[in-house]
């Protein structure tokens, strides 16, 4: 019986690879986009413009205060009502990118706020422009604080990507559901799905731990 199940599992490996590929693609694209947007929002949030900061803060609270599943449904089912046709992949990317940007914004903003005001004053006094102060003085120091939680957040977001299976994307989790209908051994199938996620996340977990150690030890600019 178990032998038969194994055989048919092995037969499902193209599907499993497709699922893994989908999960990696979704995560990679939305993490890159989310990081770019999150950094921009984080810098804007701390730039001193009250209104901008409030608006960003409100949006972040809204996203953090609602389930990700609900956000995906809103994007996938409600936006078309307003004439915005989206395929499931695009909807998934938008939802994940938005979520990533919100969390990353807060991590980056916290890092920026942790830089002592004396640093900004020294940069200001030497005539650096606002962008140069950010790029040369504030961000490198903020990164020391932000990088470990940032990488940790990436792991959480990769796992959150499993929610997109709800709108029909064939990611790793959905492959699990599909396979389990043919091979009725949920424990076995989802153990393998779990291993798939773990394989993607574990290097990041190790990286986060290493970064944390290096942050506390070294001087100089942070390098991966």
């Amino acid at each position: 019986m178990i032998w038969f199940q194994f055989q048919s599992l092995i037969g499902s490996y193209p599907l499993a690879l497709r699922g893994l590929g989908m999960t990696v693609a979704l995560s990679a694209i939305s993490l890159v986009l989310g990081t770019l947007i999150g950094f921009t929002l984080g810098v804007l949030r701390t730039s001193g413009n009250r209104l901008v900061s409030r608006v960003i803060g409100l949006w972040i609270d809204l996203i953090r205060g609602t389930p990700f599943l609900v956000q995906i449904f809103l994007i996938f089912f409600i936006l078309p009502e307003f004439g915005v046709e989206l395929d499931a992949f695009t909807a998934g990317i938008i939802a994940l990118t938005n979520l990533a940007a919100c969390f990353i914004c807060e991590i980056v903003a916290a890092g920026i706020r942790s830089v002592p005001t004396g640093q900004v004053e020294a940069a200001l006094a030497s005539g650096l422009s606002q962008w140069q102060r950010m790029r040369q003085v504030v961000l490198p120091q903020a990164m020391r604080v932000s990088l470990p939680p940032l990488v940790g957040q990436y792991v959480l977001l990769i796992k959150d990507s499993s929610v997109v299976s709800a709108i029909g994307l064939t990611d790793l989790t959905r492959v699990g559901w599909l396979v389990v209908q043919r091979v009725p051994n949920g424990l076995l199938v989802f153990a393998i799905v779990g291993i798939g996620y773990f394989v993607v996340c574990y290097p990041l977990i190790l990286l986060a731990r290493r970064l944390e150690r290096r942050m506390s030890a070294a001087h100089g600019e942070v390098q991966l």
Partner: protein
Amino acid sequence: MIEFRGVNKWFGALHVLKDITLSVEPREVVVVCGPSGSGKSTLIRCINGLETIKDGRLVVDGQRLGDRATNMTELRTEIGFVFQSFNLYPHKTALENVTLAPIHVRKIQRTEAESAGREMLAKVGLAEKFNAYPAELSGGQQQRVAIARCLCMRPKIMLFDEPTSALDPEMISEVLDVMVGVAEEGMTMMVVTHEMGFARKVAQRVVFMDEGAVVETGTPEEFFSDPKTDRSRAFLSKILRH
């Protein structure tokens, strides 16, 4: 070079600068002293726009602060500011600290900026420390890097806010020696300090502040040996006691 005329400033309800009128001529060294909380830091921070003034006139290097025509970022490149707490960039080496602004603000070639930076660091006695990070330097060494960082911009004015008060006593003189050197080269300087030895050696004038106002101005000789007001006498007896 620096001219305050009727300058006032408030922090909320607190009147920190009260009708300040004061001027510093080119190549002049002025020492500012007074009790803690009297507004000394606020006064010199106004000069490079780290604080903004409420009313009155403040003209620095021919440009009026708060004017639309005055480009504050540009003006700041002409003014070096040395902080009590050094404020070196911890993620950059000594050499990177002193070359950052020359490269990015003055747009000097990196190799040129680095050779000028090495020269300046050697001049403040840190020839061995080009590649050291601030955390690897003593307080006195950090403050000397901070002074070199300002000098590398070839400023017209140098401002010092209690540059030696965060230092262990044995490191004070190495920093003061560097400052004396800068003064002797003809830099226009405004120095908040209680180091009377420094004031006697290089200052043309001592300004005594209390409760946000300039209470007394005089040559170091006059001020230290014959203070005119009760408040300055009380202040001097306090700092002389230790």
